[in-house]
């Protein structure tokens, strides 16, 4: 059976087909290559975008001299805490407003309005309510990252096939069980998509909140770099954002693949 014949009927594949191993890295690596080559051959002037090697130097400098690690950790702690609260609040609100028309009428409108309004303009309110310390920062990030979780989970929940709700109704289960066994797993794809947005939102929120009374953090570092015009440090910040964002996104998508194995979709 080692050399068994295997001629199959070959049909033009219309879906994306099988995953290519490590293909994942092609885009970012290409981006890096373009940046490096562009800088090397003078297509990208250092005035516009610092060259990768200069960013590396700046990176080492920040790491050794200015506690880059501490900044990153401080930021991650803030973002992580805010994200955790935001994800929890977003999910709870999405379930409440997804399962009850009255809940929806109370919750949904204000959230859409909050979502439409620039966070920067809300900061004065938050400062008044929560002070200028860690609390304000975490609350702001929580509110920022709550939004995509809410919207996507709500949307995912409302997209659950109505036949499963019918089934649940004939099984005479309670609302709690319904939420646990039907609503949450059914809305999980939506939630995970929301999480992907929430992760990046929480990181981006740092840039805003760390302008206020922060003494550490990547956002703080970038604010200072902007003030003093340290382009290379600014690009260090951008790279950190890019790397963290990309890795966080990749992590969520990996999780997605693991927990959504039950799905038979174009994703294969």
């Amino acid at each position, binding site marked *: 059976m080692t050399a068994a014949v295997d001629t199959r009927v070959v049909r033009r594949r219309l879906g994306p087909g099988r995953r290519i191993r490590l293909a994942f890295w092609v885009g970012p690596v290409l981006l890096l290559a373009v940046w490096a080559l562009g800088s090397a051959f003078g297509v990208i002037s250092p005035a516009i975008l610092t060259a990768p090697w200069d960013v590396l130097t700046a990176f080492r400098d920040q790491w050794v001299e200015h506690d880059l690690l501490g900044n990153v950790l401080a930021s991650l702690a803030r973002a992580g805490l805010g994200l955790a609260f935001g994800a929890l609040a977003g999910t709870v609100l999405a379930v409440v407003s997804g399962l009850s028309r009255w809940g929806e009428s109370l919750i949904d409108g204000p959230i859409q309005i909050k979502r439409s309004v620039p966070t920067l303009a809300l900061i004065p309110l938050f400062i008044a309510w929560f002070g200028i310390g860690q609390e304000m920062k975490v609350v702001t990030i929580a509110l920022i990252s709550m939004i995509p979780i809410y919207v996507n989970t709500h949307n995912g929940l409302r997209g659950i096939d109505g036949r499963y709700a*019918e089934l649940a109704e*004939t099984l005479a*289960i309670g609302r709690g*069980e319904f939420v646990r066994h039907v609503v949450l*797993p059914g809305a*999980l794809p939506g939630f995970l998509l929301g999480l992907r947005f929430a992760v990046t939102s929480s990181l981006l929120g740092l840039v805003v909140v760390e302008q206020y009374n922060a003494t550490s953090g990547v956002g703080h570092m970038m604010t200072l770099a902007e003030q003093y015009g340290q382009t290379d440090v600014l690009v260090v910040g951008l790279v950190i954002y890019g790397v963290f964002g990309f890795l966080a996104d990749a992590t969520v998508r990996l999780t997605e693949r693991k927990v959504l194995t*039950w799905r038979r979709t174009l994703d294969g």
Partner: protein
Amino acid sequence: MAADTGRLTGTPPAVRVRDLYRDFGPGRTVLRGLDLDVAPGEFVALIGRSGTGKSTLLRALAGLDRDVAGHGEVTVPDSVSVVFQDSRLLPWKRILPNVVFGSRAPDAVVRGERALAEVGLAGRERAWPHELSGGEQQRASLARSLVRQPELLLADEPFGALDALTRIRMHALLRRLCETHRPAVLLVTHDVDEAIVLADRVILLDDGVVHTDVRVELPHRSPADPAFAELRAYLLDRLGVHDEDVPAGRRAAA
């Protein structure tokens, strides 16, 4: 073989339907004044042409048609179990959790495993629904209704995708279930033989009402029995299958 209202005893019927109308829009009135009684413990088979409203009736009994236009009176027992026409397994649960889903019995898992074994799916407890064949999905969905002990079982073509042998086994299983718990049963089927083999009463839905209602009183429920064949012919005739429809030889010189 006279029509029978099903009101045999003094006990109130398990299912009572009066003057039921269901209407899916202009020209699509599916049920038009349907009356039906099913006694407790009675096994009723519901036959009828595709699209006559069998599923619609079942959904009305299951309380799943709040948003459909219509009116009428419907009474059913508190505890109802439904086997849907599509097998309706939750795609995100493996088979065993699907089968025991919603069952609050303390030994639910054991019963679920037993039910799966009974429908011939032992060893598939941890399969995903999409990994089952069509007939296997249908049997899993049947197993789900076996772990419950409803007063009324509504089953919408639960054996449609099963081969002859598996079907006979499932018939036996269903019969055993009925003998132990004696639920009232309303079983939709397209197979007249199946209806006669299983049911106490066969009703035929046509034009939105119960068009024919026969009590099955056969000593031997075997197709070999002439009474069986007679009832079968009668029902097929009421369904509109006449002799001229029965195919003659074709393509003699293929």
